[in-house]
Every structure is written in structure tokens, then in C-alpha cells.
């Protein structure tokens, strides 16, 4: 299992999607971190090594994806603001500010998903 793949942080409120994403990523030997909402994700980021990519759902309770994205991008000095963010959207192509690095629209195509993750987490 030793490789230098960077971990992926999955921020998603739906337990089934979260678990499935975890399974898929771990099968491809990416380390995975999980969070149920933006608040939890901030907690995870503050406690653990920075991930290579954040997979972010938008509609979530407590702190939604937009607020989370804004929060980490505002911390200009912190390395957190440089972490690539890929947003999972359900409601068509709504503009998100600040701009994430990429969009994946639900239902997610697994090949596109793995392509994006490869791009950011294998160096």
C-alpha cells in the first residue's frame, strides 16, 4: 500500500454516497478523509495533513459547500487556500463564488471522477 498518492477529503452529507466514494477511492489506493459537512471538514483540515484534493458537495446541513469554500479560500496565508477543490453539483450549472477548480455534476461518472483525482493526487 506504500505509494506517494496524496489523500482525498470527501465532504458529503449523504452516507451512501460518502461510503461508496470511500470504497472506490480506497480500491485505487488513495488515502481518504471523510466529513459530513463543511464544519467537520474544517475540523479535519485543522487536525490532519493537508489533502491533495477536496471533493465537495454543495447542499449540506450545518455548513454548506459554498460557505466552506469561501472560508478556506479566504485564508490567504494558509496553505489550505491552495488545496484544489472539485465541487459535486446537483442543480445544473449554477455559478459558485469563489470559483472551484473543477465541477462534477451528479450523478457522477466514475471515469471522470477518477481522472480528476489522478490529475491532482498523483505527483
Amino acid at each position, binding site marked *: 500500500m506504500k505509494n506517494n498518492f496524496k489523500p482525498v477529503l470527501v465532504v458529503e452529507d*449523504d452516507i451512501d*454516497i460518502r461510503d*461508496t466514494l470511500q470504497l472506490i477511492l480506497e*480500491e485505487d489506493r488513495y488515502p481518504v478523509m471523510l466529513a459530513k459537512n463543511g464544519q467537520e471538514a474544517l475540523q479535519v483540515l485543522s487536525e490532519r495533513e493537508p489533502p491533495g484534493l477536496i471533493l465537495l458537495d454543495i447542499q449540506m*446541513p450545518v455548513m454548506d459547500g459554498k460557505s466552506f469554500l469561501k472560508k478556506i479560500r479566504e485564508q490567504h496565508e494558509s496553505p489550505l487556500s491552495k488545496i484544489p477543490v472539485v465541487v459535486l453539483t446537483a442543480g445544473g450549472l449554477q455559478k459558485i463564488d469563489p470559483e472551484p477548480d473543477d465541477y462534477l455534476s451528479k*450523478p*457522477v*461518472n*466514475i471515469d471522470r471522477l477518477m481522472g480528476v483525482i489522478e490529475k491532482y493526487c498523483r505527483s
Partner: protein
Amino acid sequence: MSKVLAAVAFATSTLFVLIWLKDFADFLDPLRVSTRLNASLALFVLSASLLLQLYAPILRRRHIDRGAQVLAALVFVLALVTLAQHLFGWHAFLDDWLVASSFKENYAPNAARICLASTWLLLASSAALFCMPLPGVRGFFPDQILAIGVAAVSLSALVGKAYGLDADCRIGSLVRTSPFSALSFLILSMGTLLARPERGFMPFLTNSQIGGKISRKLLIPALLLPPFMGWIEHLGRVEGGLGSAESEVFAVMGYIGVFLLLIFLNSRMLNRTETQRVRAEQNLQSAMEASAVGLWKTDVKKRLSVADARFCKILGLNKEENVERTQDFVLRIHPEDRDRAVWAFEKAIRQRCLYDEEIRILRPDGQIRWIRDRGQLVEGEAGSKWMAGAAVDITDLKHTEIENAALLAREQEAVKARDEFLSIASHELKTPLTSLKLQTQMHMRNMGRGDPQALAPDRMLRMIEANDRQIDRLTRLIDDMLDISRINSGKLSLQVEIINLSELIRDVAERMAPQFVAAGCELKVDCDPALQGQWDRFRIEQVLMNVLSNSIKYGAGKPVEISVLKKEPSVRMRVRDYGIGIAPENQERIFQRFERAGPNIPGTGLGLGLYIVREILKMHRGSIHVESQLGEGSVFVIDLPSKLFRGVA
């Protein structure tokens, strides 16, 4: 008019000059024009000056005025020189210059020299023309005064000539000028007066009001009739051989007749105008009557307000006129509009601007009318100040406006709700879809890679269970959306049968048992097993399931209780949970479409559950409400009539 006069003066004086210069003796002698050469020249120059001044305002060249003034000044100098000659007995080369040789014998010496009377008239006329471009002093214009003087003197010379006072237009020793000179001066002075009809006292004659009309109509008889009467009197005395007393009686009778005629003309004209005015006022009155415009005025100093009959009608008073103190009138305005109206009213007085407000009037019978009220300050004589204005009843208009605004708000609300629904629906539908797709794709990938674990039974079971959950979730969402669509289009129909309520509750409890177990909730039911009613089984189950799944969702880990009471002619079902509870301000909101009790808890459905519940109960002529306090759980109280239709057992 004045241009015609100036042109005539110009032409005649040119003619005289030509006669003097060119020796048209045959033409001249019988006429005995006797306007001297210099006078003819002067008149020529003056009429040219007048013509220039007439065209100056049209051409808008300042130097044209200057040129005309120079011409007038030249004539003035000539007249001064001639005057000096007359006074001091000088001779100058001007006296017989340019004169055609044949006249020299007849008129020599001084054939060209202007006579004394004409000299005075020339002085005045040239001064008048010189002054024409200058501004007036306190509404008086010297050119007009001088021209009137010239006109009077020349007219008197002409009248004198007509009565045969003197062959050379003499009145006693005063005026001695030739009739043609007198006529020329008269024409020139009239032209001068009419050249600027808009200033000085000319407007009294030229304005378009009744005074101007009457003056214009009476001016001609006033100028022509007295000389005519004088001429008749003169004829009577000189030709008819009447004595002076008889001719005076004749003249007096004539004057009386003339005055009566003038008075008659005058009064007829005034009457006609008055009739027109009264008719116009009647038209205005009937127009106002039709438009329901109420008139008012307020004495600003005495603070008294007067309302006319129509305004009284708007105010709800059955009066022809209403006079009251302004502070009392203000009380008729709706309290909410009072300050605004008074403030605008006082501002209009202070700043002399328009007062224009839409305010409500409180009628004595309590009815409220909207009016549009407009007014303005009117300052009368002796410093009196009035605010005068008009009020129109716009109640109907206002109601339409308010209705339209409400309609628009409802419409916007509906559009917003629809957008929200679309956003929620797409999220809620795509979440289970995403999960399904990820699962299936993952397995396809593993199989494609030849992973020996890909088809392991435990993995397959896990996938199938997860997929089944997602499919159930999708089914529920789609059912909810279909129900909403049926409710909205009125197509939700009931299949009524006789149902045992206690059995129904038991069925539902069994079906939902896994959910209760998963949430750690214990269900307690207290229901008379004999309770029956005429209901739609499927729909009442739906009601119960929706309410119970709410209780589980917000009261996980705590017991849920159902108790049923018979309350003829209905049954009352209470579903109690010990969950987070619902704040009072949300207790009505949760029954509306797309609303959820939690601030924003996704994954909890479309927010349609309780809306559908209420609609189903409405169709059963029942109702639902909630009793709750934050942190102390909620009780959903369902009232359901046992018999849907009266008279059916």
C-alpha cells in the same frame, strides 16, 4: 398695418420730392400740394427710418436700429436749423436749393424752406423715431407720447381744413401747415404708434381680451363720428343758413345720438362676452360635475377651510358647502396620512410649490375613501393668501392598485416556490441517483479489472441493499411529487370504504417497524379496537406514515405515542414525540409546500409530507394542527370525521 402706413408715407413723400426736383408743373399746380421741398425730403427720410425700424425686429440686426436713429437725427438737425431760421430771420442755402427752376418764381424766395408749424411737427416726429429703439421709463415710451402729440396737431389741422378755416390748415394762429403735410404727419405718427404694438399703452388697443376688442371696434367710430358731426354742424351754419343756436341744438342732438350708438355697441359687445363667459362656466361646471372633482380652499391666515358640494360628497357630508377650522378639517384625514398631508400642505405654502398627495379620508360613517388632493398657493389683494385646490376620489383606482400589487406578490411568491421546488427536487432526486450510479459503476470497474472479490456474495448483498434503499427513496420522492401534482390539479380522488382504525394503525406500525428500530424509537398505541370510519385506506395510511416518519426524524431515540379519542362526529388522533419540538412561528409554516421545520436539513425529502397530509385530511373534511414547544417534543392533532358523507351508514 403700420407697414402700410409707413409705405404710404414713404411713397407720398417720394412723390413730392420728385415733383419738386423734376418740375412736374402741370401735375402739381391744380393740386396745390404746397408741401415744401425740405419738408418732403424730411418726411421721406423719416418714413425710411420708420420702415427700417419696422423691419429691425424681424431682421434682428442692431445696426439697422442705429441707422434709423441716424436718419431721424439728421431730420431733427434740419428741423432745428429751420427753426433757428424762422426765429432769427436767417437765410441759408437750404432755402431754395434743388428746387426746379419753374417753381423758383412762384415761391421765391425760400421755396424749399419748411413752414414753422411743420418744423415743430418735424422736431417731434424725428425725436419720436429717434426714441423708438430706447427702453421706456416706468411704462412710458417717449416715442408714443410724441407721436400722439403729432397725430393730434396734424388731425386738428386736417379737421380745420375740412371745415374751411383756412386754406393752409390754420387754426387761429396755432397751426399753419399744408393739408398734405398734415396728412403725411398723421400717417407717419400712426405708423410710429403701431410700430411697437406690444408696449406702453398700445396693448389696451391691441390685446386679445374683451377690452382690446371693444377699444378696436369703438376706435374708428370715436375718431370718425365727431368730425362728421362737426362737419354737419358747420354745413348747417355756413351752407344751410341756420342760426348758431339751431345748429348747436342740432349738434347736441347729434352727439347724444352718437353717444347712444357707442353705448349700445359697447353694451352689446359686453353682453355677448358675458354670455360666452357664463356658457364657458356652465361647461366647466358640468365637466367638473361629471369628473367628480371636489374643490376646496383654505385661508392661510385665518386657517379656515371651505369645501364645495362635490368635495362634501367625497367627505361623506350631505351639504352644499362646508366651512370649518383647518385644524378640524385635518381630523377628517385618516390618522396614518394626517402628518404627511399636513407636512406637504405647509411645505407648499412655505415654498409656493404644488401640493399633491394621495391620502385617505375618514367619513363620519367610518368609511374610508382614497383621494388625490392637489392645490397651490394663491396670493390675493392686500396680502390675503389662499391655498386652493381640487380633490378626486380615487378609491376604486387605489383598490385595483392594491389588488394588483397583492396579485403580483402572490405570483412572485409562486414563481419563487416553483424555483425552490425545482432546486430541491433536483437535489433530492440526484442524491439517490448518484449513489446508485457510483455503486454500479464501481462494480463494473472491479469486474472489468478481473478482481476476484468483485462478485463475492457479501459485497453483492451490500450493493443490492444500498441500491434498494436508494430505489425506495426515489419511489417515495416520485410519489410525493405525483400527489402534489394531483392535489394541485384537483385530481386526487378518494376510495372510501369502512375502515377499522386500530387495524390500520397496526398495519402501518408493522410496515414502519424497521425504521422505528433504526431510529431507536418505541411506538406506543392507545386505540379503541372497535373504532370505525368511512375513509380512503391508502390515504389515511399515507397521513399516518408521513406524520410518524416526521416523529422519527426529529425525535430519534425517544418514544412515539399514538392515542385515539372518539369525539362525535369525529375521531381525534394525537401523535406525540419527544423530539426537538417546533417553534411557535413555524407551527403553521410546516404545513405549507416545500417547507421544513429544521432550518435547512437536506436529505429529508421535498418538504411536501405535511402539506400532502393536510390536503388529504381536507378532502376527508378533517384537519391537522400541531401543539409544541421547542425542546419539548410535538403533538400532531388530527381530527377526522367518521362519516365522510352524511346519511351514509
